[in-house]
């Protein structure tokens, strides 16, 4: 078995009486795509926030490589190599597509404390940014304002910015949303290859994509992980069928 890069142990988070994350443990191994699925309100976003650093868990531990990162800030986790994409695009909307990607490259390469040379003329940053945009197929949109992009294109830009960070693992929150059938298929193919660069913890509603991509799937219901396994195991799992798939196997 390959070593786990990200390891979550007994994570718990409650908002008053509502337990949003209930003793969640999961791992992300090198080279895999681990999909996290669950009905709306299952606590996926709350879990993602705790992993990324925006929300402090009440109990439990998060380990990254050999290091505990439970108390680290979002910034420190990003620097440690956690590349996150957001469910609701978190991009600089007034910036061009290229500027957003350059910002990512800047975060990766350092040198933000420079006050004189024009950043958009820096050949290294531009090259890194354009390379990432080309990979997701947004190179021809580089000079458009981000606010003018379609929802699907914004998701791709999120992925591109994460790529500029050259992270050790990706944390992707519904990257397929709004992409349409062909875009979704294209991104599925892309993520399929990407897992060999860095493993992906993928939250996704698109079941076709999840079943096509995931090495392992964890099902989150009411803050609890009720099952973890391969696509076939999950499809056959009685509890999952009852709680989530509603007796009907999709895909």
């Amino acid at each position, binding site marked *: 078995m390959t070593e786990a890069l990200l390891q979550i142990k007994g994570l718990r988070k409650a908002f008053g009486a509502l337990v949003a994350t209930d003793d969640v443990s999961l791992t992300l191994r090198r080279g895999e795509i681990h999909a996290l699925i669950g009905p709306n309100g299952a606590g996926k976003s709350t879990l993602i926030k705790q992993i*990324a*650093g*925006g929300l402090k868990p009440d109990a439990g531990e998060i380990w990254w490589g050999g290091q505990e990162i439970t108390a680290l*800030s*979002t*910034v420190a986790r*990003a*620097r440690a190599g956690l590349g*996150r994409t*957001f469910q609701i695009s*978190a*991009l*600089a*909307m*007034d*910036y*061009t597509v*290229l*500027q*957003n990607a*350059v*910002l*990512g490259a*800047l*975060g*990766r390469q350092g*040198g*933000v*404390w*420079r*006050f*004189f*040379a*024009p*950043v*958009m003329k*820096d050949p290294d*940053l531009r090259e890194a940014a354009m390379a990432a945009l080309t990979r997701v197929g947004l190179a021809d949109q580089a*000079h458009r*304002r981000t606010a003018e992009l379609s929802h699907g294109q914004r998701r791709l830009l999120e992925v591109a*910015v994460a790529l*500029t*960070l050259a992270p050790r693992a990706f944390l992707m929150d519904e990257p397929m949303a709004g992409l349409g059938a062909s875009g979704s298929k294209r991104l599925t193919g892309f993520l399929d290859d990407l897992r060999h660069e860095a493993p992906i913890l993928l939250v996704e509603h698109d079941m076709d994509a999840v079943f096509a991509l995931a090495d392992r799937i964890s099902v989150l219901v009411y803050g609890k992980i009720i099952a973890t396994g391969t696509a076939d195991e999950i499809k056959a799992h009685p509890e999952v069928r009852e709680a989530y798939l509603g007796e009907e196997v999709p895909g």
Partner: protein
Amino acid sequence: MIREPHINTALFLLLPVTAGVAWLLDEPFIITLTTKVAILALAGVGLNIALGLGGLVSLGHAAFFGIGGYAMGILASHAQSYVPLMEVPFLIEGTKSMPVIWLVAVIAGGLAALAIGALSLRTSGVYFIMITLAFGQMLYYFAISWPAYGGEDGLSIYVRNGFPGLNTLDPVQFFGLAFAALAFVLFLAGRLAAAPFGLALCAARQNAERVETVGLSPYRLRLLAFVISGAITALAGALFADLNRFVSPTMLSWQMSGEIMIFVILGGVGRLYGPVAGAALFILLEHILGGLSDFWHIYLGLLLLLVVLFARGGMIGSLVRRELAHD
């Protein structure tokens, strides 16, 4: 369509041309007014780095403006009375030299901004506005109640401070100095906005989460922006005190903070030359409307309302009609 660089060039030339024409016509008062515009614009350029680039609505920038003013007042008053500032543990004497005063003003303003910013930037939104206002008011009342430097009455400096090789008492030469300071800071601020720091700072204004996710700390970016902003505004304060040869707690009042913010909003938030346009319009209105009625602020308020409601990009924004932040 008019392009922003053209407007900027026109605004840049407006001040020296006005001062030059006034000089030819022998109208020293107009030169002094133009000098005032240049200095207030400089204060606005300072605020614009925090407000326009960083999105930090500081209602306490009079603190830095006043600190610059008092840096000049305190140093010059000691030089004027031949009493050293302090003798133990080492001797510090007052000075009438502008370069030294400017340096002290910039450092004092920057340090004050570091202290105020470090605390204020832990809050955001309306709390940030209130806490910066509170710090400004603290300094204001401190200045009022500190008798050593004039208290409520302020400090008068009898002769304008000197600059090597210039006669600063000549209005046109003093204008030249103030304008050179403005031009230099505009150049630096323009470079700053386009530099890596500017890119990250403006991104933090648009979406702080995005900046964190690429491994940069919005807090640190904003704190440094606040320090640079405070230092520039303090430089403007030192020049303003020298223009009037007078410094008083009025420079620290929250009305002053409001005025500096008005320059920025009138001209265009986040536009490099916005404060120049805003300060020029403000002084123009003060003199045209102020001559018609003592209640000219009513019309200023009306204008401000119109700008905020219908021309969010201020004067420059409504001329250019183009979104910010294109590369």
